[in-house]
């Protein structure tokens, strides 16, 4: 398979969905399909699992046998995608951090990251945002609305 194909999102997503479909059907086939009193827990997943396998293979097939090689048009904005994924990674990493540092600190760090690294503002602006945003959240959610926020090991 030529490397261009490997980077083709359509093919990859089709293959991934086909794999998911196979997983769904193989799991669901262990459960009762039609029980004595009507369809069992395996009935519905087998139906949509099979549909998923078939349709994703259609997608892959269409792509493989398409006459035009790959979609041209807009050039991929690599830098933009990288920054977006980096932001996501920071967001995702904030979550386990909350278990130890609590929402306020973790959210402050995330805010700092977004302001300074993603949007390239000055560090002073970052610090200000990282202090003010969590403070506002603390005021609105736990204080005014009594919504609980994750609390870390240090009691805040």
């Amino acid at each position, binding site marked *: 398979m030529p490397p261009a194909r490997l980077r083709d*999102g359509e093919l990859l*997503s089709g293959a991934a*969905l086909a794999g*998911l*479909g196979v997983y*769904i059907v193989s*799991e*669901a086939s262990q*459960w*009762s399909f039609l*029980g004595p*009193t*009507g*369809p*069992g*827990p395996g*009935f*519905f*997943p087998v139906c*949509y*699992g099979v*549909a*998923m396998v078939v*349709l*994703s293979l*259609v*997608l892959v097939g*269409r792509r493989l046998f398409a006459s035009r090689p790959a979609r041209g048009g807009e050039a991929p*904005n690599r830098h*933009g*995608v990288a*920054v*977006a994924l980096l*932001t*996501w990674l920071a*967001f*995702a990493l*904030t*979550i*386990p951090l*909350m278990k130890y540092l609590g*929402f306020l600190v973790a*959210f402050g760090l*995330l*805010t700092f990251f*977004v302001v300074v690294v993603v*949007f390239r*503002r000055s560090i002073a602006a970052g610090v200000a*945002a990282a202090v003010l*945003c*969590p403070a506002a*959240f603390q005021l*609105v*959610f736990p204080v005014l*609305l*009594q*919504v*609980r*926020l*994750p609390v870390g090991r240090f009691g805040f």
Partner: protein
Amino acid sequence: MEAVRGLLHGFGVALEPVNLMWCVIGCFLGTIIGILPGLGPAATIAMLLPLTFRMDPTGGIIMLAGIYYGAKYGGSTTSILLNMPGEASSVVTCIDGYQMARKGRAGAALGIAAIASFVAGTIGIVILTFLAPPLAELALSFSSPEFFALMVLGLALVVLLAGDSMLKAVLALLLGLWLASIGTDLFTAQTRFTMGQSDLLGGIEFMVIAVGVYAITEVMLSIENREEARLLPVPRGLRNYLPSWEELKACRFAFLNGSLTGFFIGTLPGAASSVSSFVSYGIEKAVSKRPELFGHGAPEGLAAPEGANNADSSGAMLPLLSFGIPAGGSTAMLLSALILWGYRPGPLLIQESPDLFWGLVASMYIGNVVLLLMNLPLVPLFAQILRIPTHILFSIVLGVSIVGAYSVSGNLFDVLMLAAFGLLGYVMAKLSYPTAPLVLGFVLGDPLERAVRQSLTMSQGDPSILVARPIAAVILLVAAVVLCSPLIRRLVGAGRRTAAT
């Protein structure tokens, strides 16, 4: 006309200054908690319950009900401004509301949402006032086969929600169906697709998926495109904060559609209000003369679901007040409040406690007016949110999303799922898979599977039950029409073109 006499009596009760005050307080609280994810109406009512215990019950129920339907008003605000649904019922509002905001019509969108909510809410209460007994019986004739038909109608809508590729839309739908069946099977207690995680035993929360694929994904897309201002701030000047006459005219049918669809689906215990907003959106698009505008900021695509989720809350009052059957968490809280105060909600409530019953109904008319008067002046204020610098706004969106996901069950696992769905939504967007079918599949997956299995158990495996009952058959027919609507439209359009040439 007993209803008229009752209603007049009710206005006498509801217009007492103290009750009026509770109504305004309830509506205000409802609007606030509707705007912010994190505290739903059910949790708010639960929190306030101990305080209302010492209040006069009529004032108390008027206030608590105000929180319930007021939350539906507020829920659209963040959907429109930030693509972040504030309540489960306002997910569909994101589709066209956010697109309107991106075109600089955020003020108009907020205005339409408020007006649609008012119109549909009021029509819903009128129906509740005058048609409650026959409609209550009609709702009872709905059972699993009819639900099945309703869910098929819902699934048919995916055709209408599809973007460029039908194949990808259906695949996204199937993915949604799969996500919906993760967890413990109700019928057999079989655990499915939990991968050994006890966190997944209860399945995935709807809000986690919705906020993930809408809000988080949107933040990532904006950051990728380096858009300093992805949303155009509303130009100053009163006219820009109000919907134009053309926009309102486009919504005429949507107001009615939202009202009726929302009310009727609301009367069915077991149909979530997100179902009614999806269905009304689908109907709106199916009958529209300009379906190509949907998904790109069509005002009627905003008005229909926004109206539906408000009419839905009037509809949900019907089984509550006529049989004592709650339709969801919020109405269950209202029910337990009534019991705590010593009332006996059921078929005899209207005769034995007319003050409470009619006072509550009348207060809902007043509440809708109050909400409209409260929400319209807030539009310019909310629209200012879009003037917040992007780097701060995005941080706030991420923070609010975390709070919303965490508060669902106080479990950080849900926040991790939120991040995962944000990434999924981003990947889907990059590969041009539409996300609306995914959310629709998730909403409908569970009730669809349940309806099929219940129906087939009822008929002892005979599948004809799914199509043989009259109401079910009619709904399936409508679904067939919806499925074929693009085809019909093409045929009609072709016919017109040939006629013209």
